[in-house]
């Protein structure tokens, strides 16, 4: 005979104000199987849980119903209370009388009370059919995949590898380093970006627990948390990295010149190239799109000059497979294309550049040797206008969000300009100065006072050409007057935009992304590092605009998550998954097709009854099944049942109302 205990929670005023809780308790007591019913202010509190534990022992309960908030909130809490009292935790049922009753029926207490009683009656009926379930153990492959070799990916890889967990770091370009490698100095301390990044890059290359796969892309991910299988395409580099010494003879002699992406197209690189001198690995690759040998079959100079014979024009893309347990996605960002800003003359005026181009120019290892120049005539600019929020916070032409870092790097750029060109003057059009961060406000003040930069509050409205100067018009809202600045160079602080292949990657990984293409975290506040898919984590600007400290912090957070996931040899998994009853299964395989997790396969079993033939039945992979119930619904012969939500339990619930 079932003995059910019912615990009704007031949830302070959340339930108590809109539901007559004592009446609900009285109603529950009328149910035949309910041997014990009580209310309490906060059942989730420690005394509340103690009530449950005591009642289980004293009343010899066979199942427990807690009528409170959503099971998403406190199901785990109450399950633990059950197991602490020596009861199987899956004998708990939660009747959600907060989200499903009190909150939505605040204007009708009587109806809310009645509905709460109904919900409890259903939960009691279901709990009677509850079975004892036990957590499932799934083996874990202790190897992590990090996608993207920028600062976030590098930090995540290093932190995971330092915990002696093997890491596969996949980077699509020939070298790791990402956007940070392109920066000159970093706010708010003005440390040289290269000086703090390149040691980390070298650490990645030499770390015994990191397998670095440059010039590669992830093309497929199968499996489930702890047991993923990744297919990685290693793009043909046409250079044998094992024998190449990185001497550079090939790219010195290569006759083909191509705009240099690393320097934002300001100078040229060769068709065989290494992106920058501090590249890791410091081995060149051949750009198949531009190499004349690969296009027309003529040239071959690099192969002639290579003393090691490392050039191999016949190299093909190679697919490698890695078994991994967790994935960190750190694909970074792109700059937003300011083309819609026709009023600024983007594309028409040569002397309008974006901030990353300016960054490359003032960079000590940049194409102009650290001095900003006008692209039109190569002269050093004196008056430089910086326009912030180009694309950011612009619903009409750009995107709604704030790119977060532009205020800071523009302040940095005024300082860099001041350092590189002594007799220059910076004008900054801004909307707000958003300098939230350690040392940031101080840095902006330093930039303003030290450089004497003129900060003008307002969006520039138009730019036109006058002689060889650019005239930038805007309002200074601080004095309510229109200003016009005669500029030699205009620098646009273009918005951070998600890396363009993010949606494709998200589909490939089975995770979600927002309307811009940023990958979505599981919870904006409490799970900012996880995705909705177990075992896949996010680091850096792939999730939202971030500065370097934030990216590094998030990367380290992903490492902690990965290490936590890999802490045991097996992973515990919820037992509420589907099971096939082979007696009833007809082998129709409808379930195989509907399963969104590819958790169902078929197997051959003996027909039985003395027959030698085999028959096909469905088989569910315990590790992959997420308990969604799709297969249960589609099964014609009712051969599949979902533990914790069996047909019997659900029928009981329906009968109870």
């Amino acid at each position: 005979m079932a003995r059910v205990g019912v615990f009704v929670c007031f949830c302070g005023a959340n339930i108590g104000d809109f539901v007559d809780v004592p009446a609900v308790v009285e109603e529950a007591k009328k149910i035949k199987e309910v041997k014990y019913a009580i209310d309490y202010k906060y059942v989730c509190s420690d005394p509340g849980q103690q009530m449950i534990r005591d009642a289980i022992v004293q009343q010899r309960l066979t199942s427990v119903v807690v009528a409170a908030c959503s099971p998403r909130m406190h199901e785990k809490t109450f399950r633990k209370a059950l197991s602490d009292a020596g009861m199987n935790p899956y004998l708990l049922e939660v009747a959600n009388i907060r989200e499903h009753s009190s909150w939505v029926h605040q204007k009708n207490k009587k109806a809310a009370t009645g509905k709460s009683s109904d919900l409890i009656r259903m939960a009691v009926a279901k709990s009677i059919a509850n079975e004892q379930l036990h957590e499932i153990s799934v083996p874990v492959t202790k190897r992590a995949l990090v996608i993207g070799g920028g600062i976030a990916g590098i930090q995540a890889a290093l932190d995971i590898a330092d915990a002696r967990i093997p890491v596969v770091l996949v980077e699509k370009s020939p070298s790791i380093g990402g956007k940070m490698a392109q920066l000159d100095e970093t706010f708010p301390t003005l440390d040289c970006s290269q000086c703090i990044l390149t040691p980390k890059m070298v650490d990645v290359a030499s770390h015994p627990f990191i397998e670095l796969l440059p010039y590669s892309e992830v093309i497929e991910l199968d499996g489930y948390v702890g047991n993923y299988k990744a297919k990685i395409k290693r793009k043909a580099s046409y250079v044998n990295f094992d024998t190449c010494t990185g001497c550079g003879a090939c790219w010195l002699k290569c006759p083909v010149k191509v705009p240099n992406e690393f320097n934002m197209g300001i100078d040229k690189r060769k068709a065989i190239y290494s992106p920058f001198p501090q590249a890791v690995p410091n081995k060149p690759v051949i750009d198949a799109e531009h190499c004349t040998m690969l296009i027309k079959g003529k040239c071959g100079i690099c192969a002639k000059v290579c003393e090691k014979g490392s050039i191999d024009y016949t190299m093909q893309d190679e697919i490698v497979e890695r078994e991994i347990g967790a994935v960190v996605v750190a694909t970074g960002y792109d700059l937003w294309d300011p083309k819609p800003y026709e009023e600024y003359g983007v594309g028409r005026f040569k002397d309008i550049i974006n901030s990353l181009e300016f960054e490359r120019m003032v960079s000590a290892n940049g194409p102009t040797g650290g001095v900003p120049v006008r692209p039109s005539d190569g002269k050093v600019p004196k008056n430089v206008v910086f326009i912030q929020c180009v694309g950011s916070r612009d619903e009409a032409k750009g995107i709604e969000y704030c790119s977060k870092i532009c205020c800071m790097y523009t302040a940095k750029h005024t300082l860099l300009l001041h350092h590189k060109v002594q007799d220059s003057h910076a004008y900054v059009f801004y909307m707000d100065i958003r300098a939230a961060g350690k040392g940031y406000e101080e840095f902006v003040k330093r930039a303003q006072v030290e450089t004497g930069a003129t900060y003008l509050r307002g969006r520039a409205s138009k730019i036109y050409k006058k002689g060889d100067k650019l005239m930038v018009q805007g309002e200074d809202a601080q004095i309510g007057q229109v200003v016009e600045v005669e500029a030699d160079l205009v620098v646009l602080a273009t918005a951070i935009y998600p890396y363009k292949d993010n949606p494709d990657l998200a589909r490939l990984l089975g995770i979600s992304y927002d309307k811009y293409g940023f990958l979505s975290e599981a919870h904006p506040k409490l799970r900012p590092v996880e995705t909705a898919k177990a075992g896949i984590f996010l680091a850096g600007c792939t999730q939202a605009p971030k500065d370097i400290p934030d990216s590094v912090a998030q990367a380290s957070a992903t490492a902690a998550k990965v290490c936590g996931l890999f802490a045991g040899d097996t992973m515990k998994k919820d037992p509420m998954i589907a099971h096939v009853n082979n007696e009833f299964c007809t082998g129709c395989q409808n379930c195989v097709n509907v399963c969104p997790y590819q958790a169902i396969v078929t197997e051959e079993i003996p027909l039985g009854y003395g027959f030698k033939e085999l028959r096909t039945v469905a088989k569910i992979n315990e590790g992959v099944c997420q308990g969604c119930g799709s297969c249960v619904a589609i099964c014609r012969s009712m051969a599949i049942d979902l533990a914790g939500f069996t047909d019997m339990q659900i029928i009981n619930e329906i009968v109870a109302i």
Partner: protein
Amino acid sequence: MIALGQQIENKFLTAVNRKSGSNILECYQCGKCVSTCPVSDFMDFPPREIMQMVKLGMKEETYMANSMWFCLTCAACSGRCPREIDIPRVMEAIRHLAIEENVNSDNPKVKQIRIFHEIFLDMIKHYGRNYELRMMAEFNIRTRNLFKDMHLAPKALLKGKIPLGHEKVKSAKAIQRMFRMAEKLEKTK
């Protein structure tokens, strides 16, 4: 429209900074001075805007403003300024620069205030302290408004607010010497 960018150096800003001892670049335009100021309603540009105009090097517009003449130097603004800018001294610096560069506002109120300042200083220079009866008389003569506030005189006299005797400090000579030295210093600068 304000044209910017013709000159790299903002000489006006440098001059105001030097004279006032504050760095106006520190101003982040919060407006606390404006809401603090008891006379900002009467100014054509409240203190915050004056700061921005100096930053933009708008010398002529700043000189023609009445703000620095209306400033009471009560220092409520500087007491509350989060950037610790001595705003009354900035106002004073702009007044001085305007006088040095011989810029005269045609605003009648500003003219009167300037005359008042001049008479007051003159009085101190000669007698070491203010002699109010004479001050009033001289002000009325110079502003060509002889009977201004005359109706208040009997009442004030009865209450002893206007001493009839000529007040003078004992060492007026010393004060005159101080003025001479200050003028000398001003010239050598």
